[in-house]
């Protein structure tokens, strides 16, 4: 699709607001500026002016200084606060010249004109401002379009990468499953290396896709009432081999339904409204991160936490005995492409998108995610999910 040139938006008519308590001044200016390519609106009091500003999109406001009720400087200060994009001019008599100069210095006013003012000069200044604004808006549109284009490109590329990756994965697993004949130990070993790397690629492409979906507002979750504990147990079970290989212990410390030693039934965790696939995705991300950043011997534990001021939410935590995070890293860790500044021995796998995606997924469930960490003391990542509303507080 060929790219159209950015049009300067001349469709919306610019509008200028004149405020002066003297109707003669207003009508004089209105007459002088009647042929200008913008709409002129008039007000004699600050209240009238604000009413107009509230209803219409005004580009420039020109205010008298010396008015009963509210002076020009006070009025324009209020305009600046409420409508910061409106350009502010002041009309001033000789008596209030120093006020006007001060206003310029304070950046409260862009320009002032002494009365009686030359309409041609005023008109030119207004036209300059309007031109400036039009260009600013065009620039914003260009930037917006660039961003959209980049997002679409990223989305398209990650999508296209999936097919060849799928084919590679399929045939590697076909070989490893012995469907093309028996493998020698060395063949198996090398193929497993390939598989490991293909899985990393798949994971990265998956992350890229989720990331672009999140940016485009297309990341969806389908929550349903689920029991958390089995999902956590099963997910950690699949991650345990890689933890063990690194000399790390992986623990699940969650109440499980069943009978207690006393013979009384124990309640499991309350039912939550969550998308099981996405929940697994969040857990895998958090635990894999913990594995990556925790040296041996180390421990990673998944627990539940009671949040007294959020009883309608279930809170899970993933705690590691790793390096911990510095405050400056904690602040940005859920942003895209964030990676910590440490560069000791670790291999940089991944795109730095995992936590951003976790954050987006948890938010779409209506929950929160955050990290508690001290450098050198390990980290605890916490997230909340909404409990199902038809669950009684005692879990039944």
């Amino acid at each position, binding site marked *: 699709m060929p790219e159209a040139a950015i049009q300067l938006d001349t469709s919306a008519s610019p509008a200028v607001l004149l405020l002066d308590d003297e109707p003669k001044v207003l009508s004089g200016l209105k007459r002088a500026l009647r042929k200008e390519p913008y709409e002129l609106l008039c007000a004699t009091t600050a209240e009238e002016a604000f009413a107009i500003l509230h209803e219409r999109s005004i580009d420039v406001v020109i205010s008298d200084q010396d008015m009963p009720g509210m002076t020009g400087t006070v009025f324009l200060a209020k305009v600046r606060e409420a409508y910061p994009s409106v350009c502010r001019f002041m009309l001033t008599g000789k008596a209030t010249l120093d006020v006007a100069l001060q206003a310029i210095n304070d950046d409260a006013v862009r320009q002032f004109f002494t009365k009686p003012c030359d309409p041609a000069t005023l008109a030119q200044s207004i036209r300059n401002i309007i031109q400036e604004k039009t260009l600013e808006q065009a620039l914003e549109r260009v930037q917006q379009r660039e961003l959209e284009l980049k997002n679409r490109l990223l989305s398209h590329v990650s999508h296209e990468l999936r097919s060849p990756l799928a084919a590679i994965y*399929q045939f590697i697993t076909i070989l490893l*499953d012995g469907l093309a004949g028996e493998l020698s130990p060395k063949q198996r070993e090398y193929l497993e290396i390939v598989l490991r790397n293909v899985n990393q690629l798949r994971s990265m492409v998956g992350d890229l896709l989720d990331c672009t979906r999140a940016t485009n507002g297309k990341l969806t979750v389908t929550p349903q009432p689920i029991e958390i504990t089995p999902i956590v147990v099963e997910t950690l079970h699949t991650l345990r081999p890689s933890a063990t290989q690194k000399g790390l212990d992986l623990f699940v410390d969650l109440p499980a339904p069943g009978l207690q030693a006393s013979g009384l039934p124990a309640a499991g965790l309350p039912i939550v409204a969550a998308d099981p696939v996405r929940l697994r995705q969040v857990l895998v991300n958090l635990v894999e991160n913990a594995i990556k950043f925790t040296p041996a011997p180390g421990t990673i534990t998944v627990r539940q936490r009671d949040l007294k001021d959020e009883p309608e939410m279930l809170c899970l935590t993933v705690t590691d005995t790793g390096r911990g995070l510095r405050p400056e890293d904690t602040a940005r860790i859920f942003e895209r492409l964030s990676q910590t500044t440490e560069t000791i021995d670790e291999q940089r796998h991944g795109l730095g998108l995992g936590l951003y995606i976790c954050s987006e997924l948890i938010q779409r469930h209506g929950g929160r995610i955050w990290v508690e960490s001290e450098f050198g003391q390990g980290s605890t990542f916490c997230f909340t999910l909404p409990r199902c509303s038809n669950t009684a507080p005692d879990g039944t």
Partner: protein
Amino acid sequence: MTNTKIMIVEDDIDQLIGLKIRLQANDYTVVHAVDAVAAISTARREQPDLILLDIGLPAGDGFTVMERLHDLMDVAHIPIIIVSAREPEAYAERAINEGAFAFFQKPVDNEELLEAIENALGTAV
């Protein structure tokens, strides 16, 4: 389930071969077609027990194929599973509404697909 025949309609040859090997390893007999036109003629000739159908095809798309198959008495009964690169959000509902048994987005998980095939065959008349 020996001699259960599955037809794959897929224009990407590598995907086709890979899937064929997987299905044969699970004791299915596999036939294939690489475009929308061949899909119809092959289905009528081979009478498969199930069809795996891609959406993006030369000479017509998967939805056209499905519609045509449903119009032909000799093949209308065959359960169809859509296997497509396209996003489920846009296409899964339509696929089911138009009579597909299931929608899978590529790349498919082999286990999940095999399970869906078994389920679809279980419900075949």
